[in-house]
């Protein structure tokens, strides 16, 4: 079934009578993308579920004010990214631990998670990713898994394309080093 175009979704959403329908179409089109983007950052499914719902509740609330000055999905990604970063920072503040230790906590969750289906090498890759600073991990995920263009990532993160390229390159080097070192 062909997914609805963003313009169609926005037009239907603008009409009160078709707003619910528009939201359903939007969910159908973007829920998985947003979910996996969030899940790769926070690792745990339950946390990801909460955050995804938070994201779409915000979308429902603010989509009416969307000015169409960017792509709809970059706008959605931006909301999702901000929710994730806020969540991870709160975790750090709540437990009064450095952000590195948040990564250790996520690595433990990864180890214990019933919703991880990867083999040993995949586990190793995820642990390697968790050694990266949050924003670098974010950039890596969007480039490596979501295959977004640097311009799109720049719109989402507010970072220049050049900085993003450098960040991604460094991330790749660190991960490769981790994979080789810990064999």
């Amino acid at each position: 079934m062909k997914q609805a175009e963003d313009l169609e979704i926005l037009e239907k959403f603008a009409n009160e009578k078709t707003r619910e329908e528009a939201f359903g179409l939007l969910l159908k089109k973007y829920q998985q993308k947003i979910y996996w983007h969030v899940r790769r950052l926070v690792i745990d499914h339950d946390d990801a579920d909460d955050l995804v719902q938070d994201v779409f509740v915000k979308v429902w609330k603010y989509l009416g004010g969307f000015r169409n000055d960017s792509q709809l999905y970059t706008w959605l990604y931006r909301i999702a990214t901000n929710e994730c970063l806020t969540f991870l920072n709160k975790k750090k503040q709540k437990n009064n631990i450095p952000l590195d230790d948040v990564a250790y906590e996520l690595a433990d969750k990864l180890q214990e998670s019933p919703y991880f289906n990867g083999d040993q090498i995949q586990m190793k890759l995820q642990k390697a990713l968790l050694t990266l600073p949050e924003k670098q991990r974010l950039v890596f995920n969007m480039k490596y898994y979501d295959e977004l263009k640097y311009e799109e990532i720049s719109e989402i993160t507010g970072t220049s394309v050049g900085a993003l390229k450098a960040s991604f390159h460094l991330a790749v080097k660190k991960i490769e080093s981790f994979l080789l070192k810990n064999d």
Partner: protein
Amino acid sequence: MDLNNIHEDWEKEAPVLASLGRTNPFIVPENYFEDLHDNLSVRMKIGRHLNRESSELFSTPPDYFDTLAERINTSIKADSLKQTTADPGFSVPEGFFGSLEERILQKTALQEKQGGKIRKLYTGWARYAAAACIIAVSAVTLFINKKETKVEDQFSGIPDTEIVNYLQAYSEPGDGMMIIENLGSAAESAGAASDLPEDEIQHYLESTL
């Protein structure tokens, strides 16, 4: 490394990573995405309900806000008045409270010595008198009952022929009817088992009447 062509470069620089492919190792619970829309709808309904204006959920007494400012001002004035006139103006002699306890104790000790005017609710002799009356009444009742029983016991021991002979010897003219009546009731209560034969009774009645 050419930043413009970094996509290809990184695969060359990270062959192990490149060999892994973009495999997603994470999974979700069954029907998670199918149910996500419904779960979101429920959550948004709850959110809409919680975000309702307070005035829709709670009410206030009539004219509450109209008089609120005045009541707040009154409270403020009362509070400031309390602060400025904390001292009510009364005073006590020096050392009054220090010696108060001692004086009270002394007074109570003195009252106990004088015997006090403590009235008991019930005086001692009244209790004893009441008990004595109850005992006396009980004793008399018991005695009377015993006496009556004794008399009846004595009479029941005497044979009927002796009673008849006595009555024949000592009865007066007026006793006849009385005797007949009593003999009748005695006969009924005795039933068929009567010690005296009928002809003797008949003879007696003829002789006394």
